[in-house]
């Protein structure tokens, strides 16, 4: 199992009081944690890459728990999540897909069995590339008030032989959510969708 080499860890915590409308009684909080790791497959086509998913598991767990900590430490307040990756120029998009399992399962484990699929995005990009990480409700993907996204990125990453890995969590709906759809209070919680 090759060691995952981490160059940098980056955390962003947002506290949103309003977006032009009435001030929220409880501000929405959103946080993203980003790790910059060396891409062991950079510069060549490697057929067998999937073992790296296991190598990334401890990092996924570390990132997911540090996200919960940065939002106050109580996993019960987390209502939305998402994940994403930017692969540096000497890698391929498929390397970003290695993050689905360790990133997603780490958040579910830390949150105690969240049911919905973890929304995700990925791309190949250069240092400074920005990624809009999609966010949905942790237990029911169709909850419209929780569709959101958080932009992340770092001026000096990913370098060509690196991958930027991102996880995002939120404590609630968009701050002035009012476009209908399934409400969080109506979740059945059986299939992860509704």
């Amino acid at each position, binding site marked *: 199992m090759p060691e995952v*080499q*981490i*160059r*940098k*860890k*980056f*955390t*962003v*915590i*947002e*506290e*949103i*009081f*309003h*977006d*032009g409308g009435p001030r929220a009684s409880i501000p929405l909080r959103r946080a993203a944690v980003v790790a910059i790791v060396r891409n062991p497959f950079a510069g060549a086509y490697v057929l067998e890459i999937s073992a790296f998913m296991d190598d990334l598991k401890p990092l996924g767990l570390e990132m997911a728990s540090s996200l919960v900590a*940065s939002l106050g430490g109580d996993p019960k307040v987390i209502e939305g999540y998402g994940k994403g990756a930017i692969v540096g120029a000497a890698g391929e998009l498929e390397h970003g897909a290695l993050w689905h399992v360790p990133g997603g399962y780490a958040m579910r484990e830390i949150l105690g069995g969240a049911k919905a699929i973890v929304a995700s995005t990925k791309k190949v990009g250069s240092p400074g590339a*920005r990624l809009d990480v999609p966010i949905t409700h942790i237990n029911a993907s169709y909850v419209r008030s929780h569709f959101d996204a958080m*932009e992340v990125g*770092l*001026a000096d990453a990913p370098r060509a032989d690196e991958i930027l890995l991102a996880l995002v969590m939120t404590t609630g709906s968009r701050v002035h959510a009012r476009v209908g759809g399934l409400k969080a209070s109506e979740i059945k919680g059986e299939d992860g969708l509704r």
Partner: protein
Amino acid sequence: MSASIRKLVTFIEETRSEMGRSIDPPTRRAAAVAVIENPYAGKYVEDLSELMAIGEELGELLTQRAVTALGIPATSIESYGKAAAVGENGEIEHAAAILHPKLGAPVRKILGKGAALIPSSKKRGGLGVALDIPLGHKDAAFVRSHFDGMEVRINDAPRANEILVAIAITNSGRPLARVGGLRKDEIKGEDGLR
């Protein structure tokens, strides 16, 4: 007059390795940023004292947030910097009113010391504008290992009538600093320079 805050954002960056060399303990830095309404947007106002008062308030709030984010005693902070970005309906002088007259005193009170000038930058810009916060040692501006900068940006700020105000602090100088100059163990700390 207190600031009308739409959003507070905290950034934490931790560098664990550079050029394959381990950085142990990691260099860590944090920036706290407020997105506030500009009370003088869209008009020329001679007396900017409201913004000076806001500067004092944010000096305390943002320094506290940044110190909390780093999770170390305030007295262990080694370098600092400040910056502001004014939305398109404001003037650069609005950034100056926030940053220069009154913001520094509460920063120094929280950090316990701070003989050196707080390095600063300012600009006018649109949503997502990148703000490069200059960093310098808090007690002696000539400490070369601590000359640095931290980029922050918020994709939805500043709107035309807003100002983005940032304070950054660190636990150390650059990773792998090696270009000579005054070292931190040589600081006299009398004049803020050496």
